[in-house]
């Protein structure tokens, strides 16, 4: 087992290197300039823009810039943002809590809806409940978050005036009021993201359950006289969970990566909004760091998923 994990970690190194090369080259070739806003300001002489480019090494050849970046990264130096001139790791750590809180809650909400609904719908396929769940699921994942987000704002903020639609990180309250306010302002973004996730996940859980529920060993379990609940939970669900675990594991990096659209709409200062504003202002070190961390997380959670398979189904052995 530990050998397997070690081997997988070693394999991850070349793939991460490959990913970093691709990311770096794509970003370097992408058009744009972090100092473009200066160009339209008649008070800023063009030399300043040129001096800044030279100072931040933007005029060096790509391979040199990559090696510099790699070397610094290996020493734990993530570089600094061209736009805010702040260290990238500090910038990311500043944004992480909001993303973890909002996107994490949304994922939990999605699971809390998807698993019970999916399982129940699978036990009674084509029943009224199943039909309604299916319809809602289709509606749910057909509506993009930017649409439902704005719809929620119009209903709950503008018309009803119940919830704020600008997310603030510095709530001026303490104790229970702070907690309540944190929950209040997260309701809309969490609902938007969570319901969207839940919709597709419900479909997934249902079909995974249906694959297993008709197998012979389930019939055997029933024939032994086990109750419905035991059969479903202990025999069916555990086996049906393997593909679901894969799905969840691959969703986990997104919890850290943020949700670009939703974060923009509700002004959540998370990783997603950092990423999009950095992309728009061509702040390469930040884009590079965020995407690379994201790549590392994908690799890591894939490994975790593989390890979990062994625990869920002892027939899968890891060597």
């Amino acid at each position, binding site marked *: 087992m530990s050998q397997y994990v070690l081997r997988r970690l070693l394999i991850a190194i070349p793939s991460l290197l490959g990913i970093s090369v691709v990311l770096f080259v794509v970003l370097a070739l992408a058009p744009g300039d972090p100092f473009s806003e200066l160009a339209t300001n*008649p*008070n800023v002489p063009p030399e300043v823009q040129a001096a800044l480019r030279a100072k931040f090494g933007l005029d060096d050849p790509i391979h040199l810039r990559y090696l510099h970046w790699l070397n610094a990264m290996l020493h734990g130096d993530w570089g600094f943002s061209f*736009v805010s*001139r702040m260290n990238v790791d500090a910038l990311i750590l500043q944004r992480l809590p909001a993303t973890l809180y909002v996107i994490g809650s949304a994922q939990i909400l999605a699971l809390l809806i998807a698993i019970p609904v999916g399982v129940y719908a699978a036990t009674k396929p084509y029943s009224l409940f199943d039909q309604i769940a299916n319809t809602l699921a289709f509606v749910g994942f057909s509506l993009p978050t930017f649409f439902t987000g704005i719809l929620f704002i119009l209903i709950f903020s503008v018309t009803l005036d119940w919830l704020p639609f*600008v997310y603030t990180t510095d709530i001026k309250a303490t104790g229970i009021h702070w907690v309540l306010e944190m929950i209040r302002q997260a309701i809309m973004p969490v609902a938007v993201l969570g319901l969207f996730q839940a919709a597709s996940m419900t479909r997934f859980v249902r079909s995974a359950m249906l694959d297993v529920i008709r197998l012979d060993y389930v019939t055997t379990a029933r024939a032994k006289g086990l109750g419905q609940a035991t059969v479903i939970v202990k025999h069916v669900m555990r086996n049906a969970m393997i593909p679901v675990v894969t799905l969840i594991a691959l969703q986990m990096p997104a919890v850290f990566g943020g949700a670009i659209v939703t974060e923009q709409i509700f002004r959540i200062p998370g990783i997603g909004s950092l990423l999009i504003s950095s992309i728009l202002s061509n702040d390469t070190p930040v884009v590079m760091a965020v995407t690379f961390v994201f790549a590392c997380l994908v690799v890591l959670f894939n490994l975790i998923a593989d390890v979990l398979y062994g625990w869920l189904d002892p027939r899968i052995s890891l060597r």
Partner: protein
Amino acid sequence: MLDKELRSMIGQVKDGRMDRRGFIKYMAAVGLTAPLANQILALGGVAMAEGPSAYKPTKRGGGGALKLLWWQGPTLLNPHFATGTKDQDGSCLFYEPLACWDPDGNMKLVLAAEIPSIQNGLLAADGKSVTWKLKPGVKGHDGKPFTADDVVFTWEYIVDPATAAITVATYRDITVAKVDDLTVRITFKKPTPFWADAFVGAPNTIIPKHLFADYKGSKSREAPTNLAPVGTGPYKFVEFKPGDLVRGQLNPDYHMPNRPYFDSVEMKGGGDAVSAARAVIQTGEYDFGWNIQVEDDVLLRLEKGGKGKTIYAVGGDTEFIALNFTDPNTEVDGERSSMKTKHPLFSDPAVRKALSLLVDRESVKKAIYGRAGRTTANFLNGPEKFVSKNTSWEFSVEKASKILDDAGWKPGADGIREKDGKKLKLLYQTSINGPRQKTQAIVKQACQKAGIDVELKSVVASVFFSSDVANPDTYAKFYADMEMFQIPLSQPDPSQHMRRYLSTNVATKENKWQGTNFPRWIKKDYDAVIEAAESEMDPLKRAAHYIKANDLMYQDTVFIPVQHRLKVEAAANNLRPIISGWANETDNLHDWYREE
């Protein structure tokens, strides 16, 4: 003649026969802005007066929190590294300049004790030096006194090329010297009519020497104070999250009486202009929204909610279409739009004139800019100042068609005009931005009616405005026949703005397209008039030169001005913000208050 008149008027103001306000009104009528008229008076020997203050609160603090919504939040808090006005706006909560501009263009003292004038001996009569007296007893947020050393250091910091300060253009040709602890003298290389540039306004705030001395030049990025400013401003720094939040709290030792009114200030970033307008005007979650560039009918609809309103400030920003005087489709020595070529269609002035007649500025105003725009025939609308009265504009497809007919451009079989085998087909580019794409459509439609085929192109703003030498789509390369954008006018004076189009400044491959004359227009008369203006100390003659420069551009149709754009902001109904078209939004923040 105007010259004589001006002198006698200055005389009248001096001995009290004419009041200052009347003089400024007259100047405005002649096309001079208030800031400049005030400076003319100062040079003519009448002291500049501070504008009246409408500030009502009678005690410091007690106003609660001021919640500002900047949909592009500040990303750094060092004014001299600002990549956009948003960063200057954020820095200005904590740092202060010597003086700032009020909405009427009057100078307002901040850290200076007295407005320089010839009368009080602080302004040299030849315009070659100005002396600033500093307010005594001003303390920084860390308790350290503010002195002349800080002012001199700020200048040294900026002019060090390794610092790469974006404000360097203002400071590199001046010398700043300490006279005593509370006096600094600025010396100019040549007579400078616009002397109130260095250390005035939000872009030019003063940084403390004792905190930045170790971080001058190449180490400038590492200064911890870049992210945690310590200044003299009305609010003390509390917290900064780049792009998201700037927070400050009342400075109990602030040097102006009864100010600031608010106990704390919060500047939230992120999102977009429409939802920012919504949060201020419709739901009232925020007190003030910055730069609300939203279609007017949307704003009108939101204003029905009644919690807030839009406010406008007149400055000098012009949205224009520039015409290319070189050929974008022929490559010479690896360079398109090369100075060695002539534009095949625009070399005929009739085509340029006709295009100007085909831009329906009134429709653009009605359909797009609404209250935030004014139609204009001038490229130089402001510095609202030197606005030419000799120009006019008109929209007429018939006249345009006639001009083209007379010049020999006859419609071909496909309805597109042609002459000597050259078809009137144009490529019209701009940056991606809702109002710009709509304007493009309006122009294209009119051109079609007149037999001109226009192809539209829109480029992402971050590419269009970049200095990336490898990219063909930048505005400076101008690989199109016409392009539209605006160049903001960030100070109440046209000199920086107009010298861009000197023939020595053309953008070419040789200067890596850093030349500022992107239409590549060469005109000896223009060069001469700008040169004359820059060495002209007489304010009125100088104004006349800039008006002539504008008129030369008008005659040659270098630019087709589309709209004179105003600043648009959103504010809660009970907030009393002070917004000047000549300054950043936070320039006058110390005077903001809320009506009870």
